């Protein structure tokens, strides 16, 4: 395999009851990257993930995983990835250890290998103490961890995670992020969906923003932030009579209409030069300022600007 493409999705569409839920989506996921699918509720994230993982048949479009066409070589394709769905799918009635043993066997490990791997994973995911407990007694976080552990039995080359941290407390969420980073360090490719901007920002190398089934934008978090989000500068004017002249100076220098709330002026800007320019003019006119702050664009801006969501 000489190319570095892990997943290739071409013109993917899905129609449920005459309603287009995924609409002509194309993208590629590179080997070894964390690819995030970001979108509001009902955007179609799970549907896309289920089509790639062979759980749902696309209405139209082609998908290849490591050059295996998922239609023709679905068994081969399936042997390269592990999936953790949106809702933890573990066997409720049996113990954590039995879950891991059974899935190890189903993944083609021998009895002995299965036992070794189960032990390793229980340790890795801090589930040793609860190994013999029924899953019914597990907390949501423990279920998620077991769910992920099951997906990692064969150390798959690609791991699909559908909203891996929804419903987790902040500490468990951070642990989950560390686990995901660790996977990538060991060479895995990670495909995840999330509604959390912070999660996409810290974890993903590239993000695809989708809404109403359409791919809206794709790129690195930084690129998206700078393309769509805007940086803002705000400062406080000491003397009240200076407020209006200052606003005028900033409007010209930063080329954007300022917002004035009490003594604070907030203006969007594109380049640092604009700020230097504006500040030096304020200084020339002897206008005193304080509390200068610069706000970098955030993915929140991107999300809000790009998506409308269901409601």
């Amino acid at each position, binding site marked *: 395999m000489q190319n570095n493409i892990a997943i290739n999705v071409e013109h993917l569409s899905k129609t449920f009851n005459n309603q287009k839920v995924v609409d002509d989506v194309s993208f590629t996921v590179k080997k070894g990257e964390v690819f995030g699918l970001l979108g509001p509720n009902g955007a179609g994230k799970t549907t896309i993930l289920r089509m790639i993982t062979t759980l749902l048949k696309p209405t139209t479009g082609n998908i290849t995983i490591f050059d295996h066409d998922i239609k023709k070589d679905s068994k081969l394709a399936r042997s390269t990835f592990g999936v953790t769905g949106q809702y933890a799918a573990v066997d409720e*009635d049996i113990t954590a250890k039995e879950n891991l043993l059974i899935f190890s066997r*189903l993944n*083609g490990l021998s009895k002995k290998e299965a036992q070794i791997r189960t032990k390793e994973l229980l340790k890795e995911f801090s589930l040793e103490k609860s190994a013999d407990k029924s899953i019914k007694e597990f907390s949501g976080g423990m279920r998620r961890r077991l769910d992920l552990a099951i997906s990692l039995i064969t150390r798959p080359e690609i791991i699909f995670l559908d909203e891996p941290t929804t419903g987790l407390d902040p500490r468990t969420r951070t642990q989950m992020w560390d686990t995901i980073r660790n996977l990538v360090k060991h060479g895995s490719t990670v495909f995840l969906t999330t509604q959390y901007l912070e999660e996409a920002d810290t974890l993903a190398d590239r993000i695809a923003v989708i809404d109403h089934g359409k791919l809206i934008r794709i790129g690195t978090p930084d690129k998206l932030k700078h393309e769509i989000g805007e940086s803002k500068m705000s400062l406080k004017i000491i003397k009240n009579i200076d407020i209006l002249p200052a606003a005028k100076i900033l409007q010209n220098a930063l080329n954007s209409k300022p917002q004035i709330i009490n003594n604070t002026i907030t203006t969007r800007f594109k380049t640092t030069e604009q700020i230097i320019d504006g500040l030096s003019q304020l200084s020339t006119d002897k206008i005193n300022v304080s509390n200068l702050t610069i706000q970098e664009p955030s993915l929140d801006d991107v999300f809000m600007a790009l998506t409308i969501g269901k409601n």
Partner: protein
Amino acid sequence: MEIKKNRISTIQNINTMAYRNLLKTLHNPDHLMDVLIQPVMFMILFGYLFGGAIAGGVHAYLPIIVPGILIQTILSAASGSGTQIKEDMETGIFDRFKTLPIAHIAPLAGQLLADILRLVLAIIASLTTGYLMGWRPNVAFGWIVVIILITVFTGWAISWIYAFIGLMAKSATMVESISLMTMLLLSFLSNAFIPINTLPKFLRIIANLNPMTHVITAIRQILATGTFSNTAWIVLISDLAIVLIFASLTVWAYNRQN
């Protein structure tokens, strides 16, 4: 450590799946209560309630009711397969199985293999209760084994029908009501508890069309004469046909993607 992906055969995967289902039963033995308690309860209740009226006494009624209860019990044990499968689908565990590099029939076949245990337990409970109430079939013990095997196979064939219903139904609750309804209709509109010729003509036609009537007749014939009747052959061939048809339908329904 590099994980080798051995080519594990479908048979082995089915065994693992069956093991999973047995583990589930071991952790929740109460799931077996229905197949154990129901035959005991019905046998005692019907035996003492209707025995006098229908056969002139409990003892004379036993050769009629034992095969009847036997079939009623396997119907209800078999319908458990459908409920189980639907429940597994609802928890999402089947989705996980589908993403594994295993044959798609493995999770279903594993379930059905493990369900044989339910059938065997149901049959033992029925026959033991009959024995304790005084049922003494007049044939060699080998023939008892034969009817146990026929009953297991019939129950297993019916399990595939319920598995199919389980996959097609909207919810586990719906599967449960369908199971209860078909169990009641198939067992009461048959010769399980009463001689068919006592029925009004309309019901007699229905009871004769009911396949359970013929299974029960086959078992009664074997137990009465100690020979393998034609009806018994027809039952076996029909069971085989049901397995072939419904195993394919079930796999089709399982693979059916939206």
